[in-house]
């Protein structure tokens, strides 16, 4: 069983990585309205929009085009004025890493029957969306917060790290790998518990 799982894992990784590399841009472009909405929810003080742009090196970047909608107080009288542009960018394929891990995990986990396999594969859509929403927007907003921290620090202002920055640091140091695995484990537990048709 473990050998079969290892083979499924390798095959799933090859297929998911290739699909993500070839068609990830289409997926990200389609997701930009949702990512914009998530950014607005995370940072309502910013007027913002997320778009997918060419990075000039054959790849793409998610661009968060943000401006302050109201004066942003950083403490000790230091204020970012209204209308200040605060852009941030994330490498397109890097954003897809959690999705590749999620899909590879869901294809690898053993199913007892075809129905369980279908449910596991079907859960890719909602879980993939959830994984994307708890990673990419936070990475973009976190980069802005990092720039604001540097700006405050350069003016001698000590500002407590906001939650979005903590979350981004968690994601960047491996959280983006852990989250999809945890999501896959929760989905697997749900499918095992409720997904199997009861024969009476």
């Amino acid at each position, binding site marked *: 069983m*473990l050998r079969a*799982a*290892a083979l499924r*894992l*390798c095959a799933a*990784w090859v297929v998911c*990585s290739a699909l*993500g*590399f070839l068609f990830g841009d289409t997926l990200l472009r389609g997701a930009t309205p949702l990512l914009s909405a998530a950014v607005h929810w995370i940072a309502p003080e910013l007027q913002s929009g997320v778009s997918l742009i060419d990075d000039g*090196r*054959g*790849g793409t970047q998610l661009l968060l085009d943000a401006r302050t909608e109201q004066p942003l107080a950083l403490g000790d009288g230091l204020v970012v004025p209204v209308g200040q542009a605060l852009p941030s960018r994330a*490498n397109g*394929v*890097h954003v*897809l*890493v959690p999705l*590749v*891990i999620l899909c*590879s995990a869901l294809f*690898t986990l053993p199913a007892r029957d075809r129905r369980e396999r279908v449910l596991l594969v079907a859960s890719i859509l909602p879980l993939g969306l959830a994984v994307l929403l708890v990673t990419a927007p936070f990475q973009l907003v976190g980069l802005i917060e990092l720039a604001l921290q540097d700006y405050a620090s350069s003016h001698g202002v000590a500002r407590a790290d906001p939650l979005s920055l903590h979350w981004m*640091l*968690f994601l*960047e*140091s*491996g*959280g983006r*790998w*852990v989250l999809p*695995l*945890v999501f896959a*484990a*929760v989905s*697997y*537990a749900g499918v*095992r518990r409720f997904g199997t048709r009861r024969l009476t």
Partner: protein
Amino acid sequence: MLGFALRMLVCYGLFHALYFWIPIEVLHDKIYPRLFGQPAVAMIDALQPAEAVSAQANRLSSPRAALEIVRGCDGSGVLFLVCAAVLAFPTSWRARLAGVLFGAALVYALNLLRLAGLYFVAAYRPPWFLPLHTYFVPTLLIVAMALFYLAWLGWAAPARPR
């Protein structure tokens, strides 16, 4: 399965908190050069002595390319992941200890290979650097460690306490 995921998340969170407790200067000036920089230079020298690559603080540099090892790009995430998964699995402490030790050694070896490999990619195939560094290699490391974990499970599962 849910209990396993929760235990793994708690272990991972603990490792992450301890890791961020280490000041960045200590990582850059003391840990990275000894743990990664100098061994990676030795590996690159062994493969291609003409590279004239050197390690200073958290940088690997040569006339051809330069790499910076930063927090989060040191293999810590994969290490914490595999250690958390090993510790979260209900088995004997002996099996867990073996899993953590062998897992850590494998992560370290793979990370050195990754650094040396990325150096050569940066030096000789710059257009490949970004997709490899940000997309293929991270997920490949996860797959490699997942394969290790499956092998460990095969060995450790029979030792499960009843």
